[in-house]
C-alpha cells in the first residue's frame, strides 16, 4: 500500500465530510468515487481510513457521493446536545422530544411508503407546514384512540410519564409575536428549524418559500434516514415496542362497488 493511495482515500473521506458537495459538480470527487467502485484495493483503504476516524461508510455512489455516518464515539458525531443548544431548547426532555419529532416527521413525510425509502431514484418533497400538519395529525389520531379508551388525561405532576403525542398536540401550531415574526417555540417554528438544519447539512435542498419553506430530498438523505431508522427501530425493540410490517402500506385501502357509490 502506498502513501499516495492512503492520501487519495483520505481525500475521498474528506469529500464525504462536506455533504453539500456532489460528485456531479467536482471532477476530482467523481474520479475518486469511480475508483472506489472499481478498484477493490482502493475501496478497502477507504474503509480502513474511515474506520480509523470512527466513521462508517454507508454508501458510495455517483448520485449521492460517499455517505459517511459517525459512530457515537467519533469526533464527527453530532451531539444531540449541540443541536438543542443551537435550537434554543431549554434542555427539558419534552423540548428535545418536540425537536426530534420534527426530524422524524420530516423523514416520514419525505418517504411516506416503505418502497420510497428503498428506491434510490425517489425524490421526496416536503414543506414546513406539511410536516407540521402530518405529525399533528398522527398525534391527533392517538388522541382519538386515547379518548376512546377513557384515558384522555394525564395524571397530574408526572411530566416524564406524559405520552409524546400529548406534548406535540398541546404545543401551539403557530403564533404571532409582537414584532411580526413567527413564534419559534411553536411547532411550525420547530419544524422550520429542523428543515433548515437538514438543508445546511446537505440533506435537503430548499426549493421555495411556499408554505413556510419547500424542500426536496437529496440521495444522501435517503441513506441517512434508512440507517438512522434501523438504529431507532432497534432502540424501540429494546423498549419492547415492535410493529411488524410486510412492506405494504400501513392501512390497506380496498374498494368495493358499494363504497364507491357512497361517495
Amino acid at each position, binding site marked *: 500500500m502506498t502513501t499516495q493511495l492512503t492520501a487519495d482515500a483520505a481525500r475521498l473521506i474528506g469529500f464525504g*465530510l462536506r455533504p453539500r458537495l456532489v460528485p456531479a459538480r467536482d471532477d476530482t470527487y467523481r474520479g475518486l468515487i469511480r475508483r472506489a467502485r472499481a478498484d477493490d484495493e482502493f475501496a478497502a483503504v477507504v474503509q480502513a481510513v474511515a474506520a480509523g476516524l470512527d466513521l462508517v461508510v454507508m454508501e458510495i455512489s455517483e448520485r449521492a457521493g460517499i455517505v459517511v455516518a459517525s459512530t457515537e464515539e467519533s469526533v*464527527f458525531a*453530532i451531539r*444531540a446536545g449541540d*443541536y438543542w443548544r443551537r435550537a434554543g431548547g431549554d434542555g427539558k*426532555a*419534552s423540548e*428535545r422530544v418536540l425537536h*426530534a419529532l420534527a426530524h*422524524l416527521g420530516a*423523514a*416520514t*413525510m419525505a418517504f*411516506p*411508503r*416503505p*418502497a420510497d*425509502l*428503498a*428506491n434510490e431514484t425517489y425524490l421526496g418533497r416536503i414543506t414546513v407546514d406539511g410536516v407540521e*400538519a*402530518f*405529525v399533528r*395529525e398522527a398525534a391527533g389520531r392517538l388522541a382519538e384512540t386515547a379518548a376512546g379508551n377513557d384515558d*384522555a*388525561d*394525564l*395524571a397530574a405532576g408526572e*411530566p416524564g410519564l406524559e*405520552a*409524546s*403525542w400529548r406534548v406535540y*398536540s*398541546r*404545543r*401551539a*401550531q*403557530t*403564533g404571532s409575536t409582537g414584532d411580526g415574526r413567527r413564534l419559534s417555540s411553536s411547532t411550525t417554528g420547530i419544524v422550520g428549524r429542523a428543515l433548515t*438544519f437538514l438543508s445546511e447539512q446537505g440533506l435537503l435542498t430548499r426549493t421555495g418559500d411556499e*408554505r413556510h419553506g419547500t424542500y426536496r430530498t437529496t440521495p*444522501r438523505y435517503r441513506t441517512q*434516514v434508512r*440507517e*438512522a*431508522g434501523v*438504529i*431507532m*427501530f432497534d*432502540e*424501540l425493540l429494546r*423498549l419492547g*415496542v415492535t*410493529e411488524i410490517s410486510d412492506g*405494504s402500506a*400501513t*392501512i390497506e385501502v*380496498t374498494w368495493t362497488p358499494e363504497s364507491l357509490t*357512497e*361517495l
Partner: protein
Amino acid sequence: MLQPATDLGFAQRVKALACTAPLHDLDNRKNQVQTADFSIYQMSELALNTIDLVTLAMDFDAGAPPDQIVAGVAGFAARQAPGRAGDEHLRAARWVLESLLNVGSADRGFRAVYGMTGGDGSYQRFEFDFKLLEEVVGPDGSIFLRATNEAVNVLVGALELDIESAQIAADLRLETLIRRGRLSDAQSAAQSARYRTIQYGEKLRQRLEATERDVRTVDWLREMPRFIAEALEHIAARYRAENAIMTNITEVRDTADTPATKLQAAKLVDVVRDCLRRHEQLQAALQGAGRRFRAQQDRQTFAPGSAVATLDLHAQLLVPVLTRPVDEADPVLAAYVGRSAGVHVPDALRLSDLFTALITPPAERELLGEPVEEPDLDEAPEEPPFPAECYELLDELLDLDPDAPRRLSGLIEDARRLHPELAHLVVVRVVALAAQEINPALRHNLPGVYIAVDDGTPLTDFEYGGADLIVARAAIEKNAPEGSPA
C-alpha cells in the same frame, strides 16, 4: 352516605366547567392590568363575543383574520364604554384575544387539574389540556384564528353532547319557537344550528387535508364513507328544516305588526340564509371528497415503487414513538437524530492561523465596487454558407417563366453544371419554397411567388432523395385575389 363520583359523566362536567374558567379569569384579572383601566368592561362577555366572531368567520377553508376579530370586539367594547377612547377599546379587545390564546404560555393553551375517585376508592388527579382559540397557518402563510371544539361547546352550551342529537334538538326548538312567535329565542336557536354545521365542515376539512398528506392516515374504507353519508344526511335534513323555517319566518316578517318584530324576523331570515349557504358549501365539499381521495390515492398509492421494502417510517417509527412516555421517547429519538442529521465537522484551528486572521486589517471596499469595464466587442459579420456567386446563379436559375414550371431533378442537373455547390443551395431553397405563403408576398409587393408541389414522382438522384417536386413561379396579379395558375 353519598357515593363518591366515579363515572365519566362527572369528569365531563368538571372539564366543561374548566373550559369556562379562562372567561371568569378575565374579569378577575382586569383590575390588575397596569397599563390601562379595564374595570368598566365586562370581560367575559367580550370573550364570548370574540369566540362568537371567530366561529362565525370560520369558513370551510380559512379562519378569521386576527385584525378583523379585534376590530369586531372593539365594537362591542365601545358599546360597553361609549365614553372611553376608541384606542382603549382596541386595546381591551386585543387584551381579551391574547388572554383567550393565552399568549404567555409555551403551548398557548390552558391546563386544568381535576380529580376523580377511582374504582378502588383512591382519589387521583389528572391534567386536562385545552385551547379555546388557536392560531393556524392560512393557505397564504398568514395567521388565522380558529375556535376549538371546546370553545364551540362552551359557547353553545351543549357540553360534551353528540353533534347529531344536539342538532335535532336545535331544529325542534327552532320550529317550536317560531310557531309560538318568540323570535329572539328562535334567532339564537338558528345560530346554534349554524355552529353545528360549521363543526361538520371543520371535521371534513381536517380529514381531507390529512388525506392529501398521506392517504393511509385516514380510514377511507369504513370511517370516511360513513362520515360522508352522515354529513349528507345532516345536510338533507337541514335543507328541509331550513326551507320550512324560511317559509314560516318570511310570513312572520311580512305580516308582523310592530317594527321590532319585523326587524327580528328579517335578521332571522339572514341567519337562515347563511345556514343554507354554508350547507351548499359543505355539500359541494362532501361531493368532491371522493374525487379528491381518489386523486390522492392515484398519486400516492399507485405511483410505481421499488419491490424492495425497508422500514415503514410511519407505522414502525413515528406512531410507536408518539405513544411512548417522554422519558422513554427522548433517548430513542436522540439516537435517530444523531444518525440521520449527518456529520458535524469540528473546527481544527492552528494558533498561527488564528493570529494571522486576527491581525489582518479588514480589506477596504469601495462603496460602489470596481468600475465596470465596457467589453470591446468586434462586429463579426456572418459568413454566408454559400459563395456569393451561387446566390446570383440561383436567382437566374429560379427566374422561371410562370407558364413553364420545372421539375426539381432538372434544376439540380442545371445547377451542377453551373457551380459545384449550387445544387445543394437549390435543394435548400426549393424545400423552403414549399412553405411559402402568398400573403407576405402580397404585402411586400413581390412580382410573383414560388410554389413547390409534390405530385408523387420520386426523385432519383445520387445525392438527394425524396419527391421530385414541381417548381413553379406564380405571378401575382394586382386586384386579382389569386396568382395565375402554374
